[in-house]
């Protein structure tokens, strides 16, 4: 029996210097954005509640969303939704065996970022009142 090399998970300290390929970055960000949306779901529902409750609530929401920190959180959330959505469409395509070769998978990962990041930037400009 030939001796096989033991394969272990990398340690948490190795994460800094581990160079993930683009599809890997896309994948972990898919997870990070998902957890982020899960954690912020009650906060979003609170905003949704305020926006629909009454005219007064709607105006209060606009006031609350006027602060820089709240706007920053909203921008991060918008990015999370957009990345999760566009990357998710790519995963659905992979499920259908589309773009399974390594070059195709890398290209589609770049395309996801090329779509989700400009869209997030556009929403960010709207949130900060530039557009």
């Amino acid at each position, binding site marked *: 029996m030939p001796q096989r090399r033991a394969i272990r998970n990398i340690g948490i300290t190795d994460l800094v210097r581990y160079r993930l390929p683009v599809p890997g970055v896309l994948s972990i960000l898919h*997870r990070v954005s*998902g*957890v982020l*949306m*899960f954690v912020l*779901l*009650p906060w979003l*529902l609170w905003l*949704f*509640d305020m*926006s*629909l*409750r*009454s*005219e007064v609530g*709607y*105006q209060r929401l606009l006031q609350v969303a006027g602060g820089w920190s709240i706007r920053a959180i909203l921008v991060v959330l918008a990015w999370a*939704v957009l990345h999760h*959505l566009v990357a*998710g*469409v790519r995963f*659905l395509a992979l*499920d259908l065996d589309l773009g399974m070769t390594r070059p195709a998978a890398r290209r589609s990962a770049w395309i996801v970022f090329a779509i989700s990041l400009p869209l997030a930037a556009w929403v960010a400009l709207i949130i900060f009142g530039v557009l």
Partner: protein
Amino acid sequence: MSIGARRLVVGAHYGLRDWLVQRATAVVLAIYLIALALLVVSSRPIDYDAWAGIFAPLGMKIATLIAFVALAYHAWIGMRDVWMDYVRSTAVRMVLQLATILWLAACLAWAVQILWRV
């Protein structure tokens, strides 16, 4: 880990079902989100009346509720995967999974209340 002699209670041993449900709910959410974005963009400039008007029709309430149910199920499978990947202790994981389900159920109930008050 097992409860009793042979009841295995760890792992995603729910066959293809959850995998498929996660994809199906993803499609529902994608369609709903894009439709909602188009509705909002097409009714700009948006004020309270326009915003509340979007959710006033029964059809939109039902569509939004279905989207919320899809969201809760989708988030459950995703969070379950996260707990399974990072939490080694079965007891801790079970508690976190149960908390996730209760949390999402509460959010869902709240969503119903928000929608049907418009």
